[in-house]
């Protein structure tokens, strides 16, 4: 039955030159432009110095570019085959963090592998997307809404979520969950089921609040609701962030002239609050420009998804887009006081290695989907299924 599909579509392998030609250079240019904005902000954070952040970020981005090309030029079917093994490998790493992880910023997130530190939870975000895309690719539209077929979906989303929550890292867990749910929606889960579960989410939320959330997480939510409640403690960051953004005005205070950021009133400005710094120094115009760039990149991603002729590629592309969007939305909304402070970086701009690598890996997959848009894949060609 499954082999029926193989004969159809273009199953032939693309040559390297074809791939180079199919590659969307405009997309890459946009990504580089956003990364450069990031370098400029990191330069400003360090008071006009490449050290300690901008230079390292550049090196990471360069490595990220290499990853991007390798991933992009790899056949989409390879990624399809790799989806489950990759997911399990990352899951193992994630569990390993629990035992041998390094604690940072109040949570156990880091794993030391030789000279480099990695954050398995970051990589998990892509791994989940790949595994889910692979899974939905292999089942029919009807099957998506069948309870029996939903069990593996919830397992694939739920297991890493629980592990990440235990670290405890609310932001990443929420991102994982949201990405998974978005994929489920895109795969065609019936609206009836969606509305029913939304209704059930209310008591579930109560249980989560009472038994799952830790005090510091609740504190963040309280403070989000009313930052002035603790102006010198948990609310301090968000108050200073809004002051910085607001005082930036329409055109900003000028590059490296943001008093809030430069005088250290703004916390964690090289990571989570880098968008605030941009808003302070370049104003509404600067912030809107960056958001615009993100939207254009997302537009390309969505176009790739819609153009792809295999379901794995479509879901993979959209999953990556959703993940990317959630990152930037949560980060921006957080620094503007619309969401609680959950420690989600601004993609491509915030200082951080694993996030950068994961992102470039994701963009590589996106480009792979685009390059191999005509590569059809049968519903089940894979040895593991």
């Amino acid at each position, binding site marked *: 039955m499954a082999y029926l599909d193989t004969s159809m579509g273009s199953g032939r392998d693309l040559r390297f030159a074809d791939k180079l030609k199919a590659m969307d250079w405009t997309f890459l240019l946009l990504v580089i432009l956003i990364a450069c904005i990031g370098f400029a902000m990191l330069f400003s954070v360090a008071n006009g110095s490449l050290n300690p952040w901008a230079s390292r970020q550049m090196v990471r981005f360069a490595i990220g570019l290499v990853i991007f090309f390798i991933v992009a030029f790899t056949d989409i079917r390879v990624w399809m085959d790799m989806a489950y093994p990759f997911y399990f490998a990352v899951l193992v790493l994630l569990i390993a963090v629990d035992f041998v992880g390094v604690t940072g910023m109040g949570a156990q997130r880091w794993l030391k592998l030789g000279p480099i530190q990695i954050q398995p939870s970051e990589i998990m975000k892509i791994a989940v997307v790949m595994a889910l895309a692979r899974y939905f690719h292999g089942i029919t539209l009807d099957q998506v809404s069948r309870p029996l077929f939903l069990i593996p979906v919830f397992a694939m989303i739920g297991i890493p979520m629980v592990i990440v929550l235990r670290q405890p890292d609310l932001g990443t867990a929420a991102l994982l969950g949201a990405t998974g749910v978005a994929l489920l929606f895109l795969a065609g889960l019936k609206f009836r089921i969606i509305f029913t579960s939304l209704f059930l989410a209310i008591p579930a939320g109560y249980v989560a609040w009472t038994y799952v959330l830790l005090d510091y997480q609740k504190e963040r939510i309280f403070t989000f609701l009313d930052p002035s409640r603790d102006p010198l403690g948990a609310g301090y960051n968000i108050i200073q962030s809004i002051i910085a953004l607001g005082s930036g005005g329409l055109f900003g205070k000028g590059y490296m002239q943001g008093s809030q950021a430069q005088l250290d009133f703004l916390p964690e400005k090289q990571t989570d609050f880098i968008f605030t710094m941009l808003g302070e120094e370049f104003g*509404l115009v600067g912030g809107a420009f960056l958001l615009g760039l993100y939207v254009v990149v997302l537009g390309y991603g969505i176009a790739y998804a819609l153009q792809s002729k295999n379901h794995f590629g479509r879901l993979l592309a959209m999953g990556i887009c959703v993940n990317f969007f959630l990152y930037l*939305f949560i980060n921006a909304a957080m620094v503007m*006081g*619309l969401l609680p402070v959950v420690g989600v970086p601004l993609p491509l701009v915030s200082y951080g290695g694993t996030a950068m690598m994961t992102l470039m890996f994701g963009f590589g997959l996106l480009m792979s989907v685009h390059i191999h848009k005509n590569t059809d894949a049968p519903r089940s060609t894979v040895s593991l299924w």
Partner: protein
Amino acid sequence: MLHVRDTDRYDSFTRRTIIVAAGGSLLVTGLLARMYQIQVLEEEKYATLADKNRVSVQLVPPLRGKIFDRFGVELAKNRKNFRVLIIPAQTQDIDEALDALSQYIEISDTKRKKILRTAKRQSKFSPITVAQNMEWDKFARINIFGPSLSGIQPDAADTREYPYGSLFSHVLGYVAAVNEKEAKSNPVLMLPDFRIGRAGVEQSSELQLRGEAGNISQEVNAYGRVIRELDREEQTPGKDLVLTIDTDLQQYSMDRLSEVDSGAAIVMDTKTGDILSLVSAPGFDPNEFNVGLSQETWDALNNDQFKPLYDKAVKGEFPPGSTFKMVVALAALEAGVISPNEWISCYGAVTLGNGKFHCWKRGGHGAVNMRSSIKKSCDVYYYEVAKRLGIDAIEEMAYRFGFGQTYDFGIPGEADGLVPSKGWKIANFGEKWQQGETLIAGIGQGYLLATPLQLAVMTARLANGEEQVRPRIIRSIGAKPVPIEPAAPLRIEPEHLAIVRDGMNAVSNEQGGTAYWSSRMEGEGFTLAGKTGTAQVRRITRAERAQGVKKNEDLPWKYRDHALYVAYAPVENPRYAISVFVEHGGSGSKAAAPVARDIMQKVLEKDPLGVEPFQPVADSGNRSKNT
């Protein structure tokens, strides 16, 4: 050609992708709307908050005005106070910072506890004083190692210094910390270690001496560390004061009074009322009040029976005794109730109704006229004069000579004494005035109360003869001379004054005068005319008088009489008036007169009024740049 079902799921995927994209667009629009709200609509509010964050306005304490004596000697100046401050915001752990600091200076456990307590109470950006008034070498070491000590800030502030210590304690007063209630009225007063005048000239001229604070606007970072200076307004130093006091004379008076334990002495210019010296002994060291008094010192000062904290010169009240007799005599002459040549017989006592009024001399003085009544200080003579005069005339003359009033001349807390009257008696006791009380008032006893300052004023007016001179202690403020207010005329017949002055001359310069042995001056042309006084502090009972009045030496110190002496000099064309009060000194002639004579000897030798006084220059060296 695709599988039918696959086409379904592709169409479904496309629809759902559009839904997701639409949802995403909505969220991005939300972000932009929020950015518009805070960056455009509320920009001004947040711009103000950002400036408030970044700009710290610090007051620069004004340099307090200096105080000079009449010849330009510095009586109060400013010295550098080398302090070490700790700013909790700039250190991770105050305890650790103090440990590191204790390599250089000693920090006691109580001090450490106090610092930690203060740190908990106030903003972490407010500096706390760890040590002050440090020696230069210790301070210098901390200055060198300071940068490696987190949160520690060496600082050289200005603080008050009184080079003469206790000598001027009751003239200058002292400066001390501001209390919380006062501090609310003025932000300058909230500066750490700010001091304000608490007594004496420091208090009365506080506003002139204080000056105006400057301010520095600084850009600070989130840790309170100064990044750069934005704006600076220099402080305006307080105005310098020049007093009428002569330090030499003050010193001599203090030395001389110290020999009698407790008392006061005031020397005045009879023409201008300028006070050349004003001493209340013992004094206290005002420097200790500035630095911070220890409990032991405070207790010692408070428990001292000679009351060093109490300014006896302007606050001490007691009956003026016989020094009041000149006022009664002049009242009588002016009223014409007695002729200066009328002789009154003194048998040692007179009776009035049921009362018996004694003269200090047990056997009596025999026949006494006005001149000899002053010379010998006959009480019986004044009983008779007072009886003829009535209390109203005495009261009027007492006010004319400066009793019963304050002068507000620059030393706060002056007592106004008491001149009794009929109305006063009714108001305070609800009883009619008794004639016996007039008799008692005639010899300066009874209800009558005066201060050493008032006695000096009385003497100056007697010597002046024409004006009701008023005391003055501040010659100039900020190089601007303080004008001598035109004094009211004294309105006394010159020949009446001459008679009384002649009597005073006889007291000191004629054999038989009450102070001939104790106040006659030695030396060519050195003369003074004075009057003794003895203020009784206890009532002598009839029983005691029958057995013989106890001698002062036999009584405990605090029951002995106060000794008084007033004088002016020279006898001809007098320029100086003096009043001396020796607390529980016994008799005026024995205890007070020699002190007055010695001080006056010193005055006439130096003749400070004949020496060109200090002329302060406007904006003198005091306007140094504050560091």
